C-alpha cells in the first residue's frame, strides 16, 4: 500500500510524526478523506474528530481544534491549536465547559462572543463525542 508522511502539530508541539495510509479530517464544509498521493492543497479545518491510519494500518482518533491542513509533495501537515487523544480527555472538564458555553449562549452576546462561545461548545462536544466513542 502507498503511504505518505503525516505530521500533526499542535501549539504544544509535535503530536504525531509518521506514516499515514488514510486520513479523515473535519473540513469546514464537512468530513474529507485523504489518501496518499493527493492533489496539493491547503484546506481549513474546524473543531472535530480527525482519524488516521498509520503505517501498520491501525486507526487512531484525535480530537482537534481549529486549524489548517497542507498537502504538498506527498507530505501532509496538520496544524491545529489543540490535539488530544481519547485517553487524554478529561470528561468532567469537557462537561463543565459544555455547560458553561450553553449557559453563556443563552445570554445576550455580541456577534463575536456568540461565535466564540459556539466554538467553545463545539470543542467540548467534540471531546465528549470522542470519549464516548472510545468507550464503546
Amino acid at each position, binding site marked *: 500500500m502507498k503511504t505518505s508522511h503525516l*505530521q500533526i502539530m499542535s*501549539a504544544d508541539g509535535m503530536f504525531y510524526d509518521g506514516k499515514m495510509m488514510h486520513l479523515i479530517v473535519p473540513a*469546514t*464544509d464537512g468530513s474529507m478523506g485523504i489518501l496518499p498521493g493527493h492533489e496539493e492543497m491547503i484546506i481549513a479545518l474546524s473543531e472535530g474528530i480527525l482519524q488516521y491510519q498509520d503505517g501498520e494500518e491501525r486507526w487512531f482518533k484525535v480530537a482537534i481544534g481549529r*486549524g489548517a491542513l497542507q498537502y*504538498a509533495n506527498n507530505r501532509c501537515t496538520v*496544524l491545529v*491549536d489543540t490535539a488530544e487523544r481519547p485517553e487524554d480527555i478529561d470528561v468532567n472538564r469537557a462537561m463543565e465547559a459544555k455547560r458553561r458555553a450553553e449557559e453563556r449562549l443563552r445570554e445576550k452576546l455580541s456577534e463575536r462572543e456568540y461565535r466564540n462561545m459556539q466554538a467553545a461548545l463545539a470543542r467540548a462536544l467534540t471531546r465528549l463525542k470522542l470519549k464516548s466513542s472510545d468507550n464503546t
Partner: protein
Amino acid sequence: MAQLREIKNRIDSIEGTQKITSAMYMISTTKLRQAKISRDNNAVYFNALKNMLERLLRHLPSFDHPYLRVSDKPKEDQVHAYIVVTADRGLAGAYNLNVIKAADKLAGEDGGRTQLFVVGEAGRRYYHNHGVKYEEGFVYSSERPTHARSRAITEIVLSKFEDGLIDDLKIIYTDMKSAIENDVRVRQMLPLVSAFDKMKNVPGDIYNEEFLLSPSPREVLNAVVPNYLNGYIYSALIESFCAEQNSRMLAMQTASDAAVSIVKDLSVKYNRARQQVITQELTEVSAGAEAIGAFMD
C-alpha cells in the same frame, strides 16, 4: 564602640540582601529552564505555521480580504496599535526600559495616533506614572505565558482590527539572543501584506495550477491567520519571558557579587576598627598601670 556596631549592622543587612538576591537568582534559573522547554515545543509548530502562511500568501489569487487590507486613511488619522511585552516585576536590569524605549521610538516614527496594549505590570506602571494613555481593560500578566492568555490577546487585537478601530498592529518584545544578550524586536503582525512584503512580487494568479484552497481562499485565510497571530503572540510572550528571567539572573548575579565584595571590604574595616579598640584599651590599661606605678613610687 558605636562605629563597630554600625559596621556590624551594615554587614548583617548586606548579607540579608545577598540571601534574597541569590534566592531570586535560583528562582529565575528554574523558571528559565521551564520556559525554555515550552519555547522549544512551540517552535516546531510555529515554524510550520509560518511556512504554511508564506506558501498560502504566495499562492493566493489577488483578492480582497480584511487581513490583507492596507489602510487608506490619511497618515495623521491612522491608529497604530502596539503590543508592548514587559515583565510583571522590575529588578531585571534594563529589560523593561529597553522595550519601553523601543516602543516610544517606534510610535514617534510612525506618527498618527497610538494605541498601546501593554502586557506585564511593570510596563503599565511606567506608562501610568508618565501619564501616557494605554488600553485600560487590557490587563495581562507576562508571568508563565499560556495559550489561553495569548488566545485572549489575539481575540482582542483581531476584533479591533476587524472593526477598523486600529489600522495596523505591531508587537514589541525581547528575544533571548544568547545567555548574555537580549535583543528588542519589532514585528508587524497586521495587515499581513506588509508583514510579508517580499511576497508582493510573486504573481498571484498561479494558485490554481498548484494548490487547491478549500473551501475557498477566504475560508482558509480565516482559519490560518488567527492561529498564526496567536502563535506569534505566544512565541513573543514566551521568548520575552525567557529573556526576562535571563536578565533577572544576570542582574541578581551582579547584585550578589557586589554584595560579596562590599561584605569583604566591610569586614576588613570591622576588623581594623576592632583592633583599634583593643589597642586603645590596652594603651589605656598600661597607661593607667604606669600612672598607678608612678604614684606608688
